[in-house]
């Protein structure tokens, strides 16, 4: 018996605060349930929108009619294996936090050995391990992360989710369940003709080149001779439903978290620029003065969010493995009005968690603010950029953001992954007029990022609210090719319709 909720209103929204509509929610517990639901969808011709913990910010799990398929009950860590290193098999709704805590304590529950003796070997191993992908949203699911190729601050050092997924168990819309390990099935040029345990998969993939020179989560990953697993990672659920994901973990090493404060925005940006050249932090996160003001304003009474300094300031957040770098960091900071005294620092786990909460409080404040507007402006949704550009174009892009936003008289804050030239510009909307202006700016930013060799969607994906950018990046032909591939793998067009491309 598959759990079903007829009242699905709470499933019709994600963190973008865009609202959809659906007829009900299926809540499967295993692969067989999912196959049964897909069978019904094919026969009764209804659409399914898959959701995990609905922490996405582009409406990818927001339904456009049909039914929601929530993977919330598939939240167990299943197994551990060892080849060149350890890897963990999880169900799609295991969260980033759950994974982190389980690895830290090695309390993995009763899990299976994916290779002989791996579990015992892991428990007896005195070293600690961690999963390096940190999308800052700790409640995000690993299935959602894989579906969107999520990244975050640590992408500077570890790359995006794609680099850490080494196996996928995926159910296609015809009910076929395929296990796709990394390194086994490859395209020849742009053509796949592979036999997966007796299932022959023949596909032509789009001919555009997926930009991997910058952080990029826009569109289906396509390269010559690519690995089949990469076609599914970041495909936003267009081609199948993930029922388990294998992710690599690596040996943990102690880190010190630091937040340094600067007198103005440009000082912090200059500090970041020099840090990239002279030091090797694990990530570099930027907060402009407006972001710090926002945290001060929004969370002054919240004991869980550390209070920023009282005087107006910008800030840079970074993790460091090597304390010897503090001498250099001190020199760089002093060039731009910062100092080792005007900073926060800790190697303690709970302190570091609090600093990450501080980091996440900026987007959180925006989510909460936009949600508060929904009552009298139902059509509104969050307007935050997610664009990356190459190193050498970063200053130009930052100047462009400010010029365009100031000329449109919009209020905004800028924060995020400056280590990857990937800040988030969040527009503080006040009314629907601002919303229209923000959309206009957003289009200009997207075009500019592409023009500068970057991506208009570096980590959040396209979802349903950025579909225009696919044609902008890959042309009408690229968009058509994605739809064609979608039709090939989902001929009944039932799964996650409207994500990435509108057929």
């Amino acid at each position, binding site marked *: 018996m598959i759990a079903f909720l007829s009242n699905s209103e709470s499933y019709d929204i994600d963190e973008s605060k865009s609202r959809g509509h659906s007829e009900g929610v299926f809540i499967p517990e295993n692969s067989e349930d999912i196959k049964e639901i897909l069978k019904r969808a094919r026969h009764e011709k209804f659409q399914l929108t898959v959701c995990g913990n609905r922490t996405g910010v582009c409406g990818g799990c927001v339904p456009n009619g049909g039914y929601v398929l929530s993977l919330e009950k598939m939240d167990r860590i299943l197994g551990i294996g060892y080849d060149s290193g350890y890897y963990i098999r999880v169900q799609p709704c295991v969260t980033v936090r759950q994974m982190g805590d389980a690895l830290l304590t090695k309390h993995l529950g009763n899990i299976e050995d994916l290779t002989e003796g791996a579990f015992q070997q892991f428990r007896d191993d005195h070293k600690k391990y961690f999963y390096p992908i940190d999308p800052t949203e700790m409640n995000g699911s690993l299935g959602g992360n894989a579906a969107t190729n999520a990244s975050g601050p640590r992408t500077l050092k570890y790359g995006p989710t794609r680099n850490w997924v080494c196996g996928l168990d995926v159910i296609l819309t015809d009910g076929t369940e395929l296990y796709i390990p990394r390194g086994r099935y490859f395209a020849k040029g742009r053509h796949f003709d592979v036999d997966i345990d007796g299932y022959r998969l023949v596909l032509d993939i789009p001919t555009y080149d997926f930009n991997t020179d910058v952080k990029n989560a826009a569109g289906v990953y396509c390269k010559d001779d690519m690995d089949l697993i990469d076609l599914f990672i970041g495909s936003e659920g267009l081609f199948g439903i993930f029922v388990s994901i294998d992710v690599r973990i690596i040996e943990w090493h102690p880190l010190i978290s630091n937040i340094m404060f600067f007198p103005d925005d440009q000082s912090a940006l200059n500090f970041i620029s020099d840090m990239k050249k002279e030091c090797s932090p694990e990530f570099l996160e930027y907060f402009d003065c407006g972001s710090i003001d926002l945290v001060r304003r929004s969370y002054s009474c919240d004991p869980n969010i550390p209070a920023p300094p009282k005087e107006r300031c910008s800030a840079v957040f970074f993790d460091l493995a090597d304390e010897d770098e503090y001498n250099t960091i001190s020199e760089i900071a002093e060039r731009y009005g910062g100092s080792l005294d005007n900073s926060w*620092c*800790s190697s303690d*786990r709970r302190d570091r968690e*609090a600093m990450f909460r501080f980091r996440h409080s900026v987007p959180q404040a925006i989510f909460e603010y936009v949600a508060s507007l929904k009552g009298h402006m139902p059509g509104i949704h969050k307007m935050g950029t997610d664009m990356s550009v190459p190193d050498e174009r970063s200053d130009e892009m930052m100047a462009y953001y400010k010029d365009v936003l100031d000329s449109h008289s919009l209020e905004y804050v800028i924060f995020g992954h400056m280590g990857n030239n990937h800040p988030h510009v969040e527009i503080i909307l006040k009314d629907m007029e601002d919303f229209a202006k923000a959309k206009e700016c957003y289009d200009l930013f997207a075009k500019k990022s592409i023009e500068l060799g970057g991506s208009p969607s570096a980590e959040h994906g396209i979802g349903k609210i950025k579909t225009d950018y696919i044609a902008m990046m890959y042309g009408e032909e690229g968009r058509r090719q994605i739809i064609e591939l979608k039709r090939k793998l989902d001929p009944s067009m039932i799964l996650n319709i409207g994500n990435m491309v509108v057929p």
Partner: protein
Amino acid sequence: MKIAVMIKQVPDSKLIEIDENGNLRRDGVPAMVDPFGFFGLRFAVKMKELLGGTITVITMGPNQAVEALKRCLEYGADDAVLLSDRAFAGADTFASSRTLAQSILDGDYDYIVCGMQATDGDTGQVPAELSVMLGFQLVSYASDLEIDDGKLFIKQNYGDTVRKVAVDKGTVISVSREIPGERPFPSIREHINAKNKPIVTKDRVALNLGAYSTGMKGSFTKVVKTATPIPVKKQSTIIDSSDPEVGASELLKEVNQ
């Protein structure tokens, strides 16, 4: 003025799981400075800011408890003492207090600051035991402090009542909550400087304590088992109050049962 702060390294309560038998699973759980002891440290740092002096942070525990002391040094303590000896293992609150008190007598401190309890044992007995053993007065539920005309005043927060008391040297202060408005983390400079602050380790012999006065041998109580209580389901009775007089009389009957 010399302040001693008692802290304890405990397993991170957020990560402790309960197994199928109701027992706490502490294996693999990372350690942390007990939050109440940490409130005590922040309290002492504010005392030092207002009155001057030095802060020594003291803990009893295995060698790895040195990590907890290092964190306290970053947060403003001047030096630290680790009381570590196999003979201290299994101490109940009395044996723990006796060991701590002995180390305090070594240092001739004016104020002793403790957390009101530790999150692993939750007994709340150590501050009171220390005050008796040292002949100090005890001020409990300390939540903030101020200086008026050079005199230390402590706010005691009892939940429904806040009392302000003048406090002299020779006092054990038991802190119940974090004092407001403190800077959330140390600076990088403080983190670096903490590495040069001294940490002294003392064992039973160094403390001049007898072989039968510490650890399990010196304890009056023994922990037989640690388990979470099984909640008792209470039966509820719904009283029809459509006739208030009858309803009230039924309610009285229930209460008097």
